[in-house]
């Protein structure tokens, strides 16, 4: 018997070849993605043409032809944008009427947000779960820093304004509306009819009425109903309204997630002896929330942008301050600059949230890796 029959020597194997030219690397990518078909090529060329029309113009307006220094409108003579006011007004845009010598407290509160949010947002950080205690304490710490007391100069909330007001309302809304929305979603699926009815009523009321209406109600009507010695702060009332409103949406998003969890998951948890809250916390919600991430983040983004609606009840958030500035005779005719400036702030934050949600979805995907 010879043993060569099934045995191929190295020489018989086909030699390894590089891929044909133009299918790998940058050239390959461009071909594959931008010029794969006639329509794709046309779209690519059209897009390039539009970019060529828009980008140089915008870039020139915003930077090359723009004026950056000066104390009033006359300082900017060029054809481009006028940013001379920024230096003078940035404080108001960021901090509203917060006392100038105290604005470091706002900066500090924002800075402390980083270590507070990090252990919630990211895995595998130093200090592990212990860092969560700081996250839990942060809201109280931030309130203390911003409002003062205990030796710090007290700053009432009617001094809050500018982007700091948007962030305060938005962040408080985000922090509270998620747990509240989860409870509402669980309540809506509860076996107890009364609880279920209350949750449905709450959710439908807040989804069925415009947020602006609630803002007016909070500002004008609530004081009439609340006992007068019980002087609820206006900003607090706005936060409550925004939170309830977002919680109603989040509850519905999460209810969708809960419905997607097969009954077998509940049954397996029960059969193992886990109680209701344990099954929810350890088995059901981690899965339901994962499915709901895009919807939840969507709601957060909408909530954050909706903080600009406080304009209707006369609070001076960054947009309202921008409006004042546009109407100011010293800086007349700078509407475009002002609103572009404000847009950048919102876009950076909302875009970050969106990117983070995509990162989170990838991290929680247990079917790949």
């Amino acid at each position, binding site marked *: 018997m010879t043993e060569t029959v099934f045995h191929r020597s190295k020489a018989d194997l086909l030699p390894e070849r590089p891929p044909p030219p133009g299918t790998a690397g940058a050239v390959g990518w461009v071909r594959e993605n931008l010029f794969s078909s006639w329509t794709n090529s046309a779209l690519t060329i059209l897009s390039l043409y539009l970019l060529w029309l828009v980008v140089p113009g915008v870039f020139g307006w915003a930077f090359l032809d723009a004026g950056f220094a000066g104390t009033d409108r006359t300082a900017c003579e060029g054809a481009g944008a006028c940013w001379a006011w920024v230096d003078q007004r940035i404080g108001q845009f960021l901090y509203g009427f917060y006392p100038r010598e105290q604005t470091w407290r706002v900066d500090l509160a924002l800075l402390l947000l980083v270590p507070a949010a990090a252990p919630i947002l990211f895995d595998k950080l130093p200090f592990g779960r212990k860092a969560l205690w700081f996250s839990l304490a942060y809201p109280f710490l931030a309130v203390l820093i911003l409002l003062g007391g205990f030796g710090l100069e007290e700053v009432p909330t009617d001094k809050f304004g500018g982007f700091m007001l948007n962030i305060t309302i938005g962040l408080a809304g985000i922090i509270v509306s998620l747990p509240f929305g989860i409870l509402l979603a669980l309540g809506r699926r509860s076996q107890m009819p009364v609880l279920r009815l209350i949750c449905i009523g709450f959710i439908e009321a807040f989804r069925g009425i415009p947020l602006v209406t609630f803002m007016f109600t909070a500002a004008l009507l609530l004081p009439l109903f609340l006992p007068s010695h019980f002087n609820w702060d206006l900003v607090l009332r706005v936060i409550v309204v925004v939170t309830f409103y977002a919680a109603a949406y989040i509850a519905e998003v999460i209810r969708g997630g809960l419905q997607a969890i*097969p009954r077998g998951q509940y*049954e397996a948890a*029960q059969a*193992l002896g886990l*109680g209701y809250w344990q099954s929810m916390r*350890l088995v059901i919600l981690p899965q339901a929330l994962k499915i709901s991430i895009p919807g939840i983040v969507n709601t957060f983004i909408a909530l954050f942008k909706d903080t600009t609606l406080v304009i209707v009840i006369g609070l001076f958030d960054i947009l309202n301050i921008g409006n004042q500035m546009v109407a100011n005779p010293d800086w007349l005719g700078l509407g475009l600059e002002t609103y572009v400036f404000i847009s950048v702030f919102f876009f950076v934050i909302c875009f970050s949230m969106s990117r983070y949600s995509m990162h989170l979805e990838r991290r929680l995907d*247990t079917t790949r890796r």
Partner: protein
Amino acid sequence: MQDQTAAGPIIEIKGVNKWFGDYHALRDINLTVARQERIVICGPSGSGKSTLIRTINRLEEHQEGSIIVDGVELTHDLKNIDAVRREVGMVFQSFNLFPHLTVLQNCTLAPIWVRRLPKAEAEATAMEYLERVRIPEQANKYPGQLSGGQQQRVAIARSLCMRPNVMLFDEPTSALDPEMIKEVLEVMVDLAESGMTMLVVTHEMGFASQVADRVIFMDAGQIVESNTPDEFFNRPQSDRTRLFLSQVISQ
């Protein structure tokens, strides 16, 4: 307490009736299961097999009669229900592993949160059972990365980690491809030989004749026949059983 009940039957089902709305799903069920007894339950689709074993750990509630598991009666009392569920393990047709947890975490979840074991101890126990079902090397994978047979063996290990006295199986191999059925049945035979009390809903007649002490045939919500495997297969008492057996065997 333990000594008093240790001698008696582990499960006593007396005069149990259950309705889904108007539909009478379990009719006057009487069944006593001795310790270490292995019972196979079979019967046509819709005959109430699943419903019967699911009433034993209260995944379904019965409306009449009494079910006593190891001296604890299943009533609306949540304490009793928890006590019974800690005692009774269950394996489902569709595995029902928790997809967001690794195999090891699936096995330690309930021991840590229900039995309050320290994590290290729970993990040691889990590895022991994963070895018994022959997949210790998959401990850190996610269920979605395993084959059906592997997933079902993890599900068995997960139940065993609670150290139950009774194991319920609801068609554990019906969702599996033939090669995988064998690996799961082997694990179940091992378990039977180790002295576990088992109630198994299955149509695997080979498994029934190999390990069962008793085969129960259900039809239309009733227990029609209950006998040793030998009697059951070779000298079935009722026409319904004969018809069913001829159908199962001709398949």
